[in-house]
């Protein structure tokens, strides 16, 4: 196998791509490539990872122009003519090299009222939510988000309208709206309405296309639009 030609972003918002040559291996991932560069070629390269098995959501980068989880992205699936261009995830401020500042991304989860608002106390019995109930199925479809930011990075509306809460935060809100144990639905619907919330979504479906764990935030956002509209027409917002 001939070596891989890799261009890696160096610097912050202002910076440039640096070229490296990396040996190829079978089943090599993009994260393996970045790790090789950092350990063998340039120890000053900054990047993030933790679990390496697609659970922690910390290794998102832009690979050949497309946001991806790099630990589960095989080089032979994404390299074009044996070349890789690796950049930090889009729509987030770059701290250094491949590391983006995720604060705004997670602050938006809080702004979308992404925390569970329970109605029971520890003295109450466990809530029993039937696995085959319609609402539970909707929750199950969206609940496995790993918070990697790939959807946020893929979203054009975030790029155009920086106040937009983004697909991950809205997906989180949707799983809580459909959680029958949660008691903060109206406050949450109020938080996700409007031109920084679900109504800003153009249904481009880039988030759904790129989500590494195959969640469809687009479906959740469409659901939020319906629930918000119902609440508004009943005068409850």
């Amino acid at each position, binding site marked *: 196998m001939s070596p891989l030609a890799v261009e890696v972003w160096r610097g912050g918002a202002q910076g440039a791509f640096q070229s490296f040559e990396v040996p190829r291996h079978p089943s090599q991932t993009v994260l393996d490539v970045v790790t090789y560069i950092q350990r063998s070629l340039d120890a000053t390269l900054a990047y993030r990872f933790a679990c390496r098995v697609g659970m922690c959501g910390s290794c998102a980068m832009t690979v050949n122009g497309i946001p991806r989880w790099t630990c589960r992205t095989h080089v032979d699936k994404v390299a074009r003519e044996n070349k890789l261009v690796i950049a930090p995830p889009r729509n987030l401020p770059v701290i250094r090299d491949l590391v983006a500042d995720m604060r705004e991304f997670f602050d938006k989860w809080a702004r979308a009222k992404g925390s569970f608002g329970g109605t029971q106390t520890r003295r109450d019995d466990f809530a029993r939510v039937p696995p085959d109930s319609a609402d539970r199925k909707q929750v199950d479809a969206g609940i496995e988000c790993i918070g990697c930011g790939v959807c946020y990075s893929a979203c054009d509306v975030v790029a155009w309208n920086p106040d937009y809460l983004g697909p991950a935060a809205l997906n989180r809100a949707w799983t809580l709206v459909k959680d029958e144990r949660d008691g903060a639905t109206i406050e949450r619907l109020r938080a996700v*309405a409007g031109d*920084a919330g679900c*109504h800003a979504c153009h249904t481009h479906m880039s988030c759904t296309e790129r989500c590494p764990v195959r969640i469809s935030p687009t479906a959740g956002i469409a659901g939020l639009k319906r629930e918000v*509209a119902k*609440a508004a027409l009943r005068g409850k*917002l």
Partner: protein
Amino acid sequence: MNAQRETLLWVAQRASAAVLAACVLVHLATIIYAVRGGLSAAEILGRTHGNAAWLTFYSIFVLGVAVHAPIGLRSVFIEWLGWRGVSRDVALLLFSFLLLVMGMRAVLVLFA
């Protein structure tokens, strides 16, 4: 931001889109049907003058446009120009009024 108002604007845009979809289809089909053997201005006026059904249909069409276009422009202004707030909404209200006046003027001239 007023969630209730924002949401009702969104509902109004969706509802007006549904109205416009029907209106555009009827409008285009009627044009194609009406001009099969050629059509003069006098013939058009002959059909529209005093025609209450025609007046009702095109009044709804104009109203749909005056509701739909300004709400859509709100998002365009945010995304392209970063323009929000009262100044944008006042400008769009004026634009809506302009569409309504120009549209209804044309409709009434053909009806009366």
